[in-house]
């Protein structure tokens, strides 16, 4: 292993400090015993206890987890199908256009996505609540899933599917028996990505939610406007831990996926 030079070491330290110092401070202050957010009053877990007794906050957290799980599942199914269609239907007309249209939401400002969805839901007179937020998050995250799955499909040897068909599988069975097991790690990574994206979305959720279905970010945001309570620090620390776990799992899954890909590569 090459040793880093002093300059590189300092640059690295500053870079990481820039990224993570605010988060570290937040985590430390979540264990603060003091009622005042900015004054250190010794170590304590009281704000965690406070959170678990705050029924409104707990309801918002539960709502967020449910929206995240359902929308991630729908987005994974749709995104995987889109990726398969785009990478397998090589010949069809307008494939480049479809590809581009699939990726556009990645760079679309969330305000626009949120507003357009709100207009749609109002136009079709949908009652805003759990399902509207879930559908909105599915729209947001399915293109991320498609990107992850499509890159995996691209590296998969096409003749594997042909071999499956040659050995008696119709195209659907060939997909289920051979392609799906091989892209499963990427599909799992896509699901986790969609879940975390849904979990931390504030903008689209606030456009599409209704009374009685407040997600955690909306709840936190509205509390903070009245003044930051140390309880918020505790909640944020919990969210950070959850997201860290999911991200690590997702990257492990995609690493596993690429390792399997090596053995599938032509000799």
């Amino acid at each position: 292993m090459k040793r880093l030079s002093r300059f590189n070491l300092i640059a690295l330290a500053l870079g990481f400090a820039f990224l993570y110092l605010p988060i570290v401070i937040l985590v430390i202050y979540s264990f603060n015993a003091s009622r005042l957010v900015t004054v250190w009053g010794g170590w304590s877990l009281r704000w965690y206890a406070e959170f678990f007794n705050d029924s409104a906050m707990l309801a918002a957290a539960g709502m967020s987890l449910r929206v995240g799980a359902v929308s991630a599942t729908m987005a994974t199914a749709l995104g995987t199908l889109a990726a398969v269609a785009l990478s397998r239907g090589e010949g069809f007309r307008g494939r480049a256009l479809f590809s581009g249209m699939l990726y556009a939401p990645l760079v679309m400002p969330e305000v626009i996505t949120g507003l357009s969805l709100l207009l749609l839901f109002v136009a079709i007179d949908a009652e805003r609540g759990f399902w509207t937020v879930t559908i909105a998050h599915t729209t947001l995250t399915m293109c991320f899933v498609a990107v992850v799955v499509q890159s995996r499909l691209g590296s998969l040897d096409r003749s594997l599917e042909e071999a499956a068909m040659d050995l008696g599988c119709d195209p659907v069975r060939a997909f289920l028996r051979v392609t799906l097991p091989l892209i499963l790690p990427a599909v799992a990574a896509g699901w986790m990505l969609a879940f975390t994206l849904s979990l931390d979305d504030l903008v689209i959720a606030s456009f599409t939610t209704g009374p009685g279905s407040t997600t955690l970010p909306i709840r936190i945001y509205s509390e903070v406007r009245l003044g930051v309570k140390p309880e918020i620090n505790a909640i944020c620390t919990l969210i950070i831990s959850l997201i860290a776990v999911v991200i690590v799992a997702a990257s492990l899954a995609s690493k596993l996926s690429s390792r399997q890909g090596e053995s599938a590569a032509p000799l």
Partner: protein
Amino acid sequence: MTDPVQSLDDAELHGVPLLRVDAVVKRFGGFMAVDRLSLDVRAGEFFALLGPSGCGKTTLLRMLAGFETPDSGRILLNGTDIAAVPPHQRPVNMMFQNYALFPHLTVRDNIAFGLKRAGLPRAEIAARVAEMVALVRLEGMEKRKPDQLSGGQRQRVALARSLARRPQLLLLDEPLAALDKKLRENTQFELTQLQRRLGTTFIIVTHDQEEAMTMADRIGVMEAGRLEQVATPRQLYEAPNSRWVAEFVGGINILEGQIESRDAGRMTIAARDAGHVIAAEPLHCLTKNDICVAIRPEKIRLSKRPPASDAGHAAVINRLEGIIIGVNYLGGQTTYQVKLDGGAVLRVSVANMARLDVDAYNVTQRVVAWFTPDDCVVLDQ
């Protein structure tokens, strides 16, 4: 007019062939991949499709497997048209060039894959897998994954997997291309033995003529989407039907010239850079007067003095004088380049029969290159 080389028994070709490809056309955009190609393959035959890359041989194979659909023409298997039948419903299996083993399955599950899809009872699947494993000598490897196998072992798993369903026709797409030379030679031999034993019809696609010659009963030489010649290896080598085939299969000397006279099965040819050559009248028709004489390098003999022409064996011998300009020692044989006085350069290969080089020639040495009229193949230019 019977040429001993040409005398393949036509009766063998009668009856319904296992596979009949009838005027099949396949275009990719403007590119004609397969151009009105017709071909019969008999049951139990080991047939090789030989050709340079891009000649359409793989496209033809993929049409037989069902991965491509012909634009027109018929593909008859046992008399029924299968051109529109999807791959999973054909009694045909394919061994892929890169083997396409399923990386997430063990050797056993790879081999059993097609059997499970066929809905065979569990005991039968187990028996068939064991039979296949024994056939390709992979005992003890059943629980391994493909990435834990060597190249040769993977090749054998792919073979076992494609044979497990007992297809009527097995298609092999460059099956030995990924193996190193030594292993390839052994595998060629094994594959031939296996085919004889099973009696399954094999169609192999290859660009390696030695491989095709070693294994196949008959070879179809393809070029630009057409079959140039379909013949036994011996016919292909000794009696090519076109200059292209003659030059594609094996080394050859080509002397271009015009026919001067024809007499009693012999023709006298004025070769442009080599003087007069007397050749046997070919079986096929020549369309023009401008022709070429093709002579294999090992058919030409060298000597220091002109051979005695009236020594009993052949009345007519072509004698072309020249000097040696190059010597390549290859172990079993030596290849000489002889620059004829007329200007043409002949490649002559001489088997090294004796260990001590009593017969060797040196560069700049004057020699006579000689061959009989029967050693010549006369072809259109």
